[in-house]
């Protein structure tokens, strides 16, 4: 690792004013630290968010679940409140990476990185979540812009994510057997505003599969999805899977997600 300066502020305002052009916020560090170690990235200063109490925690009101940016995957996975309000979200968090990664990694860090194969973007877009920052609130679809790109500005920090509680929701992923990242993951939710189907891992950025949404709106069952294909062009292809393979996985995972929905 190249050398860097380090600061550990205790409040959001302090953190934001500490960040300069070459600096990076450090959340759980499960992506940033490996990237720095490989010298794929360099930081003048790391501003560690680990000491900011106001960024941690989960609360559930009547209609939504609110999760602080520095809440770890393990805490979302084990939360009795999340399990009862949105079991699919707890299930998703419990399948990110491995146990040690879940003990450090955070929701704010994951979504701010916007890895194309990360799990959380599917839940945010699938549930129609709102991302709150120190400056504004924006819809998940406006937040995730492109490959490793979000709408965040340099001095903008995710503070929490709020998820409307759906009627039912399910998540299914085909994990890369080594990394457990989603080769393809599909999050399906039946909400008051309609059915939403969000796909991660298959393309450069999370996206909605609107043909499936339409089919599930009239009949929320795996059978309704039979015959619906996703166009392979524009999907990702790499050593792990071709675009055609990923396109097929979307259908398979969507059906599994609908069956698992509760």
């Amino acid at each position, binding site marked *: *690792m*190249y*050398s*860097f*300066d*380090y600061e*550990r502020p205790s409040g959001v305002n302090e953190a934001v004013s500490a960040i300069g052009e070459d600096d990076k916020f*450090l959340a759980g*560090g*499960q992506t940033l*630290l*490996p990237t*720095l*170690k*490989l010298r794929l990235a360099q930081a003048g200063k*790391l501003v*560690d968010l*680990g000491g900011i109490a106001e960024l941690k925690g989960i609360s559930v009101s009547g209609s939504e679940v609110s999760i602080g940016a520095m809440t770890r995957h*393990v805490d979302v996975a084990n939360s009795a409140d999340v399990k009862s309000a949105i079991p699919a979200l707890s299930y998703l968090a419990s399948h990110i*990476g*491995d*146990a*040690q*990664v879940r*003990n*450090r990694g955070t929701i704010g860090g994951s979504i701010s990185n916007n890895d194309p194969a990360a799990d959380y973007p599917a839940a945010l877009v699938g549930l129609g979540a709102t991302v709150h920052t120190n400056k504004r609130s924006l819809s998940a679809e406006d937040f995730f812009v492109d490959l490793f790109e979000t709408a965040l500005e340099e001095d903008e920090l995710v503070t929490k994510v709020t998820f409307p509680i759906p009627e039912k929701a399910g998540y299914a992923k085909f994990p890369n057997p*080594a*990394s*457990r990242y989603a080769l393809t993951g599909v999050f399906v939710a039946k909400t008051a505003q309609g059915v939403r189907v969000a796909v991660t891992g298959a393309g450069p950025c999370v996206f909605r599969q609107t043909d499936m949404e339409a089919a599930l709106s009239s009949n929320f069952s795996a059978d309704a999805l039979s015959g619906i294909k996703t166009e392979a062009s524009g999907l990702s292809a790499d050593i792990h899977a071709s675009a055609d393979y990923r396109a097929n996985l979307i259908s398979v995972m969507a059906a599994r997600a609908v069956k698992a929905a509760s």
Partner: protein
Amino acid sequence: MTTVNMTVNGKKVSADVAPNTLLVQFIRENLRLTGTHVGCDTSQCGACTVHVDGDSVKSCTMLAVQADGAEVTTIEGLAKNGELHPMQAAFKENHGLQCGFCTPGMIMSAVDLVKRNPNPSEETIRTELEGNICRCTGYHNIVKSVKAAAENMGG
């Protein structure tokens, strides 16, 4: 340099470290506790697993400064009064290791696993040990060891 204070295996330690010092470097090089191994150094193999405030973490993917104020337990901190921890005893009894390189991390993960799942099934053990790689055993005796330890630990 940044000053870090932490409690490692029950003992208070303090040092000035460069901010880019990894927790595993601090443990091995400053504290000379070399039971914690560096395997892949890319957050995959789990050989460097230690407990920070009771949770298993990969100490190659955490900065020493992030552990400021924390309680850290390494493999050296498990045995009490010359008695092996039940997990260590079970690995010995069930031949849960061959070359032994992954063993410290495997045991630290397994202790955390049993804390979270006091009576784990074979499937749970295999899934929960996802973050630890062993290139010798084929995992069979590791799983057997964890199951035996969980029973001995009163699961």
